[in-house]
């Protein structure tokens, strides 16, 4: 006789469940670094760097919670490639771009860079936005001796990997200082609460720098609460924050979480502005946060409203190609690619060591996001802008230059 199905042992049922979960996990890992779906990797001819083309690689989060990061950066890079090719390429050779999606996962980032270098044989790699992913990809690039330029990873550890890893954006110690200065001097806030993502190197680092600087300027941190990226419910942390009556809440996370947090902040009746970092920079921030995010501030690499010729020129061209206003990540992607092409033109050869030396020698490069000079640590030192969300658009508030 068959056993009564209702009475089948729960242990057995759960064993089945566990097996299933394990298989799910495995199959999720199996799906590696597929090329970006939207024509990102559209290179019909077998790509080589030896013939009449120079192949460069880009890895970014084309899908996932931080999808606009990768997409914007890729658009920026693509625009730079198009311009460089129209202007005759690099010493007569056309540039070809290969983009891989890392889905915002660090193991995928490592695989994507490995594939770009070992199988596609790119001469240089551009990417990533998220610091955790640049750390994963940077280690691979360093190991193979191929230069990598991160357009927008702000965590200090990224370029500490080694002499092959560069960046064209400012660093989090500076960004934390900018935000603390803005909170203390412009917002006149004495008390700040912090809600950070415990799973992201970027968020944790920025939190520490902000805290140090804010306290150094005489402010107090009322409470430090943590969440994990992708969390949906922040009520426990926000209730604690509400009890401490802060004048500003610092949320150094990425835009999806920031949007969700803003919704719940307002739902709980907290009225103070939120303050974020460049990880907020996405059109999706307003799409998710809507009215909840209005009036909040974040620091960024540039604002499309800045009155500089580089910015105006770039915004115009970008809008013509993609029909949207470029965010900071698009601008940095554009700058990173153009800086790379500039170094290639100056470089005697395109092998890793020589090219890296040329990139390291970059001085006073006029980028959309400001003048870029590589220092001894392969970092760029630039000003930051503060923007405020108004009517769904980040509106330029002020520029804060690094201290002398």
């Amino acid at each position, binding site marked *: 006789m068959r056993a009564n199905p209702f009475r*089948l042992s729960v242990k057995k049922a759960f064993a089945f469940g566990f097996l299933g979960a394990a298989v799910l996990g495995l199959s999720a890992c199996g799906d590696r670094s597929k090329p970006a779906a939207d024509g990102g990797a559209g290179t019909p001819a077998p790509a080589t760097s030896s013939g009449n083309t120079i192949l460069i690689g880009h890895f970014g989060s084309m899908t996932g919670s931080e999808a606009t990061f990768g997409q914007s950066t890729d658009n920026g890079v693509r625009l730079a490639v198009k311009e460089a090719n129209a202007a005759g390429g690099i010493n007569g050779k056309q540039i070809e771009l290969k983009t891989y999606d890392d889905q915002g996962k660090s193991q995928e980032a490592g695989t994507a860079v490995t594939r770009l270098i070992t199988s596609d044989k790119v001469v240089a790699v551009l990417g990533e936005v998220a610091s955790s992913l640049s750390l994963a990809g940077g280690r691979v690039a360093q190991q193979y001796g191929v230069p990598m330029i991160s357009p927008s990873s702000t965590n200090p550890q990224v370029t500490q990997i080694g002499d092959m890893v560069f960046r064209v954006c400012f660093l989090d110690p500076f960004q934390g200082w900018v935000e603390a200065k803005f909170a203390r001097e412009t917002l006149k806030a004495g008390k700040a609460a912090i809600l950070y993502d415990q799973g992201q190197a970027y968020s944790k680092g920025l939190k520490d720098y902000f805290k140090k600087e804010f306290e150094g300027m005489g402010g107090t941190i009322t409470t430090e609460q*943590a969440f994990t990226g992708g969390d949906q419910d922040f*009520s426990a942390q926000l209730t604690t924050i509400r009890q401490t009556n802060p004048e500003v809440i610092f949320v150094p996370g990425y835009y999806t979480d920031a949007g969700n947090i803003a919704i719940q902040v307002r739902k709980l009746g907290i009225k103070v502005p939120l303050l974020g970092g460049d990880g907020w920079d996405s059109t999706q921030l307003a799409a998710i946060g809507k009215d909840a995010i209005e009036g909040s501030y974040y620091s960024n690499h540039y604002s499309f409203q800045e009155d500089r010729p580089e910015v105006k020129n770039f915004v115009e061209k970008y809008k013509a190609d993609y029909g949207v206003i470029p965010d900071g990540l698009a601008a940095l992607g554009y700058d990173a690619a153009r800086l790379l092409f500039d170094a290639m033109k100056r470089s005697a050869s395109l092998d890793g060591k020589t090219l890296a030396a040329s990139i390291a020698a970059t001085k006073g490069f006029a980028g959309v996001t400001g003048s870029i000079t590589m220092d001894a640590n392969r970092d760029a030192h630039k000003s930051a802008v503060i923007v405020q969300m108004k009517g769904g658009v980040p509106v330029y508030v002020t520029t804060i230059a690094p201290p002398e």
Partner: protein
Amino acid sequence: MDGVAVGSLYALIALGYTMVYGTLQFINFAHSDIFVLGAWISYTLAVGLGYAMAGSAPPAYAAVLILLCAMAFCGAVGFSVERLAYRPLRKAPRLNVLITAIGVSLFLQNVGQLKWLFGTQPQRMPGLIDDKILANVSGVQVHLVDVLGTVTALALMLVLDWLIFRTRLGRAMRAVSHDTAVASLMGINVDAVISFTFVLGSSLAAAAGFLYAMKYPGLNQPAHATWVLLGLKAFVAAVIGGIGNIRGAMLGGVLIGFIELFGAAYLSPHLRDIYVFSILILVLLFRPSGILGTAVAEKV
């Protein structure tokens, strides 16, 4: 309050797991994806019907309409999944069906990410219900969304309970779950009953998806890890309540919701998943058949 609201959502999803397990003895891993589908269909409908505009409050019937449409749609999807993926395997070993379920789950996740469907971006669910704070009991805010969500979930569970324990169809479902072969000898159309089970479970999951989107309007993309974890917790709820037991799933869901939210609020929000899975371990250690499950030694 959050505990009750979230708990009743877990319960709604857990019901789907438990009903399928009761009739077919396999874990339908695609069930949590039906829940995600429910949330995203609600979003698509709400935007499609033009309720996304800020400022103008949508009419009160909009929420009900979208809820019912999402339930109907997901019921249809649940029916097709059973008909196309599971029915051909009715006579196959249980493991094959389980693997198929995982395949269906991955299929739904990835189809959901297609550009012309839901895409890979997180989206904001338009607010269909004016979220008022109804009361403030010693610092705990009671939100209209939570109250309506809980009431809807409870009402659906009562309807289901009535359906299963008070109607002929319900009796047929129970008969099939007791012994499929004998039930079919008694003139019950087993295939129809199983299809109905799937439709029922899927539409409950869709309702849960809709209510979830109302409570947490920042919708993650269809394949996001958050959804997988949610589905897993609902499955835990089903196991804690005693898998295969309808009332156990309801109890388990509410219990899990309570433990998670209370733990997060009063102990530490960083360990919220740990509370849930610790309870699971305790239940499996001390009452392996679940709270309302009946333990029977299996004959080998």
